[in-house]
């Protein structure tokens, strides 16, 4: 692929984001006029929400209370899951690793569900995400311990197998916890197993946002370390990397970021797996580019998926997790066919 093509693709990708966001805000069960929408946004940015409310009461209400927080939730969840996936794949040197497959998502879902079923989630808005983070960290610790136990040659295979097993186990536990809970609702069940963005309000989004930005940036700072580790841990050590520290930091950051994303939008599947993979094909595996671009593309992708879900059978909605699962599944089938044609696994 030529450098010019790659660079223009990069620019297109980054610039298409704002356009997509505008579409997301404008389209839906109720279409909003773009001119009004832009005016409201302008007033909101000038911290003059009252004027906007007066001038465009309907647009302001829908935009400021429903679509904007929901869009932000989509962006945050998408970028977090994608960046965590990219970092995990780098750490385990395997393009199939991701928070989903390694059980971190399932762990944090179970944590969140336990917070709900025990009723502790009602005590404070931070209790549920705290449970989610603890669940994610526990799963990560388990995977980490397993990765250290097995010999170097088969480490990756064991990690993936263990992750799959742990993932099923925790998903099962989540379902059971939900079934036994008194507050059991089918929508809750779907939210904590599949992810969704409906009804995401400012309180859901605002408090995790700074943490996500912070931890996301910390992950991006690990880019060079992840480049080194992709040559194998022994070689990375030889080049002066503290492998143990990198492993620990990456796993902890990935777990926390994943957990926060799940606290916002539930475990939206396939983003962490599909997005870094796609970015790697387009722009190479260099983590300094891969991590930020994955964050970008992950955000756009979840936004687009939710947009599709909202307008396809409006006024009904299809959950974003369903759309991403369909997209992700199709992508992987396409990938398998492509690899078979090339006769290799890239």
């Amino acid at each position, binding site marked *: 692929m030529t450098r010019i093509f790659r660079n223009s693709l990069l620019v297109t990708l980054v610039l298409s984001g704002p356009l997509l966001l505008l579409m997301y805000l404008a389209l839906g069960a109720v279409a909003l006029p773009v001119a009004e929408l832009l005016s409201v946004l302008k007033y909101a940015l000038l911290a003059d929400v009252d004027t906007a409310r007066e001038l465009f009461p309907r647009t302001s209400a829908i935009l400021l209370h429903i679509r904007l927080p929901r869009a932000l939730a989509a962006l945050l969840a998408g970028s977090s899951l994608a960046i965590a996936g990219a970092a995990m794949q780098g750490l385990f*040197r395997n393009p199939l690793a991701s928070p989903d497959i390694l059980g971190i998502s399932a762990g944090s879902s179970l944590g969140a569900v336990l917070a709900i079923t025990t009723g502790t989630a009602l005590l404070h808005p931070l209790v549920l995400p705290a449970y989610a983070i603890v669940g994610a960290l526990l799963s990560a610790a388990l995977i980490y311990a397993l990765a250290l136990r097995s010999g170097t040659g088969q480490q990756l295979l064991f990690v993936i197998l263990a992750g799959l097993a742990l993932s099923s186990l925790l998903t099962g536990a989540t379902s059971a916890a939900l079934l036994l809970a008194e507050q059991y609702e089918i929508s809750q069940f779907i939210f904590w197993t599949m992810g969704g963005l409906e009804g995401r309000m400012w309180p859901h989004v605002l408090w995790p946002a700074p943490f996500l930005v912070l931890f996301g940036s910390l992950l991006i700072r690990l880019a060079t370390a992840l480049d*080194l580790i992709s040559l*194998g841990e*022994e070689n990375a050590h*030889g080049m*002066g990397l503290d492998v143990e520290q990198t492993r620990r930091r990456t796993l902890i950051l990935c777990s926390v970021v994943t957990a926060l994303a799940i606290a916002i939008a539930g475990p939206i599947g396939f983003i962490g797996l599909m997005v870094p993979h796609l970015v*790697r094909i387009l722009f*190479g595996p260099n983590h300094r580019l891969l991590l930020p671009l994955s964050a970008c593309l992950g955000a756009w992708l979840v936004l687009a998926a939710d947009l599709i879900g909202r307008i396809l059978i409006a006024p009904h909605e299809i959950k974003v997790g369903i759309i991403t699962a369909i997209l992700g599944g199709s992508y992987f089938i396409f990938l398998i066919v492509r690899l078979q044609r090339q006769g290799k696994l890239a």
Partner: protein
Amino acid sequence: MTAPRLAVQSLSFYRQDRALVEDLSFALEPGELVGIIGPNGAGKSTLLKLLVDYHKPSQGSITLSGTPLAALGHRERARRISYMAQHSALALPFRVRDIIGLGAHSRLQGHLPTERALDQRVTELAEQLELTHLLERKLTELSGGENQLVQFARILMQQAPLMLLDEPTASLDIGHEAQLMNLLRRQCDRQHTALVALHNLNIAAVFCDRLLLIDKGRLIASGTPDQVITQANMAALYQQQVTVSKHPVTGTVTVLPIKQAPRPVPLHIHLIGGAGSTVALARWLLQRGVRVSGGIGHEQDSDTDFWAATGMAHSAVPAFAPIDQPAIEQAKALVESADLTIVCDFPIGAMNEGNLALAHYAQVLWLLEDDTEAAKQRFYSDRQAQAFAHLRHQGQTLTALAAIKQLSVRIAALTER
């Protein structure tokens, strides 16, 4: 005196009560290219991982120019030691150029070389290693050998004074193997030090200044290739499956595998001869698993060289010295214990006539004589001819061909039992 670049004192490493490295001590000086050899599982890789602080030693000390290894931070260590692991992960499709550039990681902080300077250096290195055509390719598309050369380029990029390499030539063809070792040699000529685990003993013998021979985590021998790669050492480690000799062109010790290991035949044959007369027969017998001894020879004679190189029991006197009574007394035991002693067809003069006296001690004696006409010229004086004639009464005279035939029958009979 300054401290050596690398000093290892009583180094041991245990895992689950099993000693992987035990009580190793050695030192490396600037400019040295030192090979670690030994059979599979001897502890070569483990030793290198200890030296790069990837494993922590159970006992003993490792110092770099006087500084304890454990006291160095990761980056500081990487500026002093580079390490090429036996395996490198290949799962992600990095560009070769980027991989080689990563080698400079430890030097990047502080006075940062510019991106351009780094790229320049990578290009230069690639030219040296003839890798230029691979620079824009992906690592995942390379063959095992190409990948190994790329990893080596990455090590050179690190510019550390001490280089540890674990089987760097394992999947290289012989041309690239020589290329890599020559480059390493050149690095050492610039006062770098390299410690290389090698399984190709011939490569080790040609390129290394010194060798460390390791088995079961212990240092068995160390010294020049000639001192370490001996028939006795190799036979002990590789179950008599190899033969050591000096290469006639390069003059380095050469190890070759033996086609089908002979089962030892309970037969001891002593060969007396000189001027190369015993070589063919000795080789023939050794290949069939017969225990062969030789003597008395003269040092630097081709027979004596062969006996020494193959690890045969033998006795010899200095070059140009006569075989005197003390030498005969010393060699007597070999002849007396041999089931059969064969005097080969060789010219006999004042310097080696003692061999005829030695032959008297034989239990069973064969005298090889191929051409009766030429035989008259075998002796420099009548004295030796008479002594030989006297031996004819004691032993049996036969041609080499007849001897081989008889020996074949005898060895076959012994092998079947």
